């Protein structure tokens, strides 16, 4: 118990057991969406309630939690969720990817490679990859059962016919373990290759839609494509203005109203590590000055 008057990690133990059962089933059937009796959480639906419930069900006092939103630890909703667990689960929190045992995320996978000792928890708004083609749950469940995924290929083909290439840029559909079509949550397709054969256990929680699914460690995850139109990730002409990275996902920051902009790493921990190690981008400062500036926060 903590000072909040609620059970450890907010949820009661019966609810945690129910969620753990759903997680076990999800791990046993990679990519399959397991219905679970999601609870109302004290944070709004659509703000990470699925991820929070999964984290609450698996977290313990030995864990170190990292929470990111858009790749950064300091975005308001990430701050809010991290505080929620610091308060209700008295858990150690970190901004360092390498220190974390549980990483809850919205919209990104860290740039730093994950390990077998880590669990990724994804916040999922719409778990059903077929939803935009077929809004009805009654239909999509049948389509998954029959592995009837033709509509998704048709959709991607229509992109190619209209635009010359596949125009889906995030929440890019993947095939898990050659069986289930899965929505990787709205991560950029840039992150899709990191899903494949990851040493970390990856859990996906959709609170409002009451679904949990999983990609167990070392599971093949393939982004859908065509032989003549292979899957590709985003690329930038620029590098990170602060750390000079050319291998990370870059956010665009508008710096004035005359078209001025700069690109910076979306993964704030990765960028900070690189700068601390002496990498300097075109608008960055050297490591000493960087440390002085961030220490002043």
């Amino acid at each position: 118990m903590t000072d909040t008057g609620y059970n450890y990690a907010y949820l009661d133990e019966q609810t945690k057991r129910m969620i753990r059962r759903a997680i076990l089933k999800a791990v046993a059937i990679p990519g399959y969406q397991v219905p679970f009796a999601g609870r109302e959480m004290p944070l709004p639906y659509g703000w990470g309630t699925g991820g929070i419930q999964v984290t609450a069900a698996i977290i313990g006092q030995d864990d170190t939690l990292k929470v990111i939103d858009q790749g950064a630890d300091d975005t308001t909703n990430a701050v809010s969720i991290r505080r929620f667990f610091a308060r209700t689960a008295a858990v150690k929190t970190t901004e360092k990817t390498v220190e974390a045992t549980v990483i809850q995320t919205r919209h990104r996978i860290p740039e730093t490679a994950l390990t077998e000792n880590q669990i990724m928890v994804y916040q999922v708004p719409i778990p059903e990859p077929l939803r935009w083609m077929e809004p009805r749950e009654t239909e999509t469940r049948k389509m998954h059962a029959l592995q009837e995924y033709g509509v998704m290929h048709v959709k991607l083909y229509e992109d190619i016919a209209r635009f010359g290439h596949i125009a889906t840029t995030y929440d890019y559909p993947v095939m898990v373990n050659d069986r289930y079509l899965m929505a990787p949550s709205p991560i950029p397709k840039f992150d899709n290759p990191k899903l494949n054969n990851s040493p970390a256990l990856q859990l996906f929680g959709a609170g409002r839609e009451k679904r949990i699914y999983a990609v167990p460690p070392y599971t093949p995850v393939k982004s859908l494509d065509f032989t003549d139109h292979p899957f590709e990730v985003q690329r930038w002409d620029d590098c990170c203005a602060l750390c000079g990275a050319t291998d990370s996902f870059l956010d665009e920051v508008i710096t004035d109203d005359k078209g001025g902009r700069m690109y910076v790493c979306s993964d704030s921990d990765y960028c900070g590590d690189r700068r601390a190690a002496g990498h300097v981008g075109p608008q960055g400062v050297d490591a000493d000055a960087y440390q002085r500036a961030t220490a002043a926060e």
Partner: protein
Amino acid sequence: MYVAVKGGEKAIDTAHQLLAEQRRGDAAVPELTLEQIKNQMTLAVDRVMTEGSLYDRDLAALAIKQARGDLMEAIFLLRAYRTTLPRLATTEPLDTDTMRIIRRISATFKDLPGGQVLGPTFDYTHRLLDFALAAEGDTPVPVPADAAPLEACPRVTALLNAEGLIEPDTAADDADPGDITREPPLYPADRAVRLQTLARADEGWLLALGYSTQRGYAKSHPFAGEIRIGSVDVEIIPEELGFPVRIGSIEVAECEMINQFKGSKTTPPQFTRGYGLTFGHGERKAMSMALVDRALRARELGEDITAPAQDEEFVLSHGDTVESSGFTQHLKLPHYVDFQSELVAVRALRAEYEARRRAAQNGEQESRND
């Protein structure tokens, strides 16, 4: 020099301080008490209890105060609290036949056993702003209690049922009625699950859907067979005793709609039922709920499913205000990464478009030069 934006924690703390200040308003004005809300904002309390799925007037009043009068926010507060409560027992079904009635009307019969009782209602008030209320100190003259106790009020549908004109109440079988707070929604849903979902659904959503059936989108020719409001006892059967024990009473509004049905291959023409129930005086919602309940019975009654109000998955999965409000408002959260992905894609598409256009222009130029 540019250092990435930081300071989320401080911003959140300051925002919450501002919120507390705005909630309190002018400190020279006396603070609103929970007793005042509970006693004078009764219909707001009723709605928050109904959609919050928790019968507790004090907590509902607290939620309304904390939410600055935003009822959806108050409903969310109550729901998030409710979900942490242990289940101690399951009550026996409410017996609304024995309701201590304060209002009971039927639109289908001019008079009937038990009579028509208007009770406290906005009906037949002229909606003229009462400026006298603006002056404080207004205490209405109490209505003297009726000397004669109310006669027994048999249900209108029971009276019709005696003649076989209305479908019988589907027998409450022993099957577990399901619990939408403990089981994930799966479709098709049975009626008990549908009614539970409707009972906590947003009033505006049900009102609009019910209204749509009246305007011809799944018309079911409804009559307000009976609306009754009053208090009913809540009973449980403790395992060790084996007989019902009254643990308290709650105030509810119940509506039974009577709807036309032309009959089918297996059923003779008869009236059918739509049912609505809310905590407190939620009459408007109870009526809307009854219309939507009836519309959702289309499959069971063999009617064509042509209108939104008959579409179970559509109606049930979009009615919860905690869900819809959360997901609509999540659009406020940062989407930098997705948006950046789209920016990269749209720029690439535009560059390709431009290249094609230029190539086409050059082609024209060359053919003219030939």
